[in-house]
């Protein structure tokens, strides 16, 4: 198994090459997946847990991976599903930073945290859309991952960015 331009090719020496391919994916995608999860839950430990679960699935399913999508799209899809699985942990589903972000300027918080707080105020789908958009996943791929139309994704990205820009303007004032 080797990865070239997002395409996974299988080789006969499977277990060693699977380990190698996984190492490569793990090194290349950990930060991206972690940020996607952070965009969804805005909690470092929780995001780390979801990212770990995502890579466990990647490890388990890698031998069955068919190149129907690029390996990146596949990983993001698993990550999105793992994020959405958190809906079942309803009691833990708190957006503790939301109120803060809504109150206006946040004191002693840097802009990076403010961006993640603002994203936390969005609904579930929008959080995933903007996280992947900022991760530079193509809109066509975002649409395919979420099962939405590309035009819908485009419109929503535009609206979300408008919302974020407004919040940042208020924050900077």
């Amino acid at each position, binding site marked *: 198994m080797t990865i070239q331009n997002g395409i996974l090719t299988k080789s006969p020496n499977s277990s060693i090459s699977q380990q190698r391919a*996984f*190492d490569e994916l*793990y*090194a290349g995608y*950990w*930060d991206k997946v*972690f*940020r996607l999860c*952070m*965009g969804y839950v805005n909690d*470092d*430990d929780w*995001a*780390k847990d979801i*990212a*770990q679960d*995502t*890579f*466990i*699935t990647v*490890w*388990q*399913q890698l031998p069955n991976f068919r190149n129907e999508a690029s390996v990146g799209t*596949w990983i993001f*899809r*698993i990550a*999105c*599903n*793992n994020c*959405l*699985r958190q*809906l*079942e942990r*309803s009691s833990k589903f708190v957006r503790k930073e939301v109120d803060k972000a809504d109150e206006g300027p946040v004191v002693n918080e840097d*802009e*990076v945290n403010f*961006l*993640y707080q603002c994203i936390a105020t969005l*609904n*579930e*789908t929008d959080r*995933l859309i903007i996280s992947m958009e*900022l*991760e*530079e996943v193509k809109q066509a791929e975002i649409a*395919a*991952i*979420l*099962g*939405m139309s590309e035009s*819908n994704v485009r419109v929503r990205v535009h609206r979300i*960015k408008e919302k*974020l*820009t407004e919040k*940042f303007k208020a924050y900077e004032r």
Partner: protein
Amino acid sequence: MNADDKFQQLWRSKKAAPAPDIKALLEKAASVKRAVKRKLILTYALLTATIVWACWIVARSHPKMITTWIGVALAILAILLYIASSVGLVKQLYSKGQEEAPVQQYLQNMLQIREKQRRLQRGILNAYFILLFSGLALYMIEYTRVLSAGTTLVIYGAVAVWGLINWFYFRKKAIAKQEAAFGAVIGKLESVIADTEG
């Protein structure tokens, strides 16, 4: 710098938590598997112990009437059902790895699982109370035969009152608790599905 670039830059400036060591990650995967296996073994041990215990009780009292045996069998069935549902066997029955499915399909699948679980849990709860009390009523026939009609009436009356309290209070309370938990999750799933379809 325009807003797009700024957001992108801020987004990427977020310091990612260090990636856990691959060995530790794979160990976590293995330990989750082991925990599931342990839980399953424990469940089977509990179920077996329950059956053995019930058989031992019955064997000691040497029942002669068929109603006593049927009563015991019904009570055992009720307890088995209760244990199976309380340890999450029902959930395991339906949970299959779907993490790779497209998001909408994954959500639909999650929704279906929860709805099935909701129906099944409710059915199990009803069956539990019906089986337990009808089992008890049948079991008591043999031992109340030797008592006077008045005493038998009092005993059956007490059991009936206790059964009604269970049915109309404890069962209702348990169902309400289940409904609240399932309702919250199902509601959220439905709203996200509607959002991705919109």
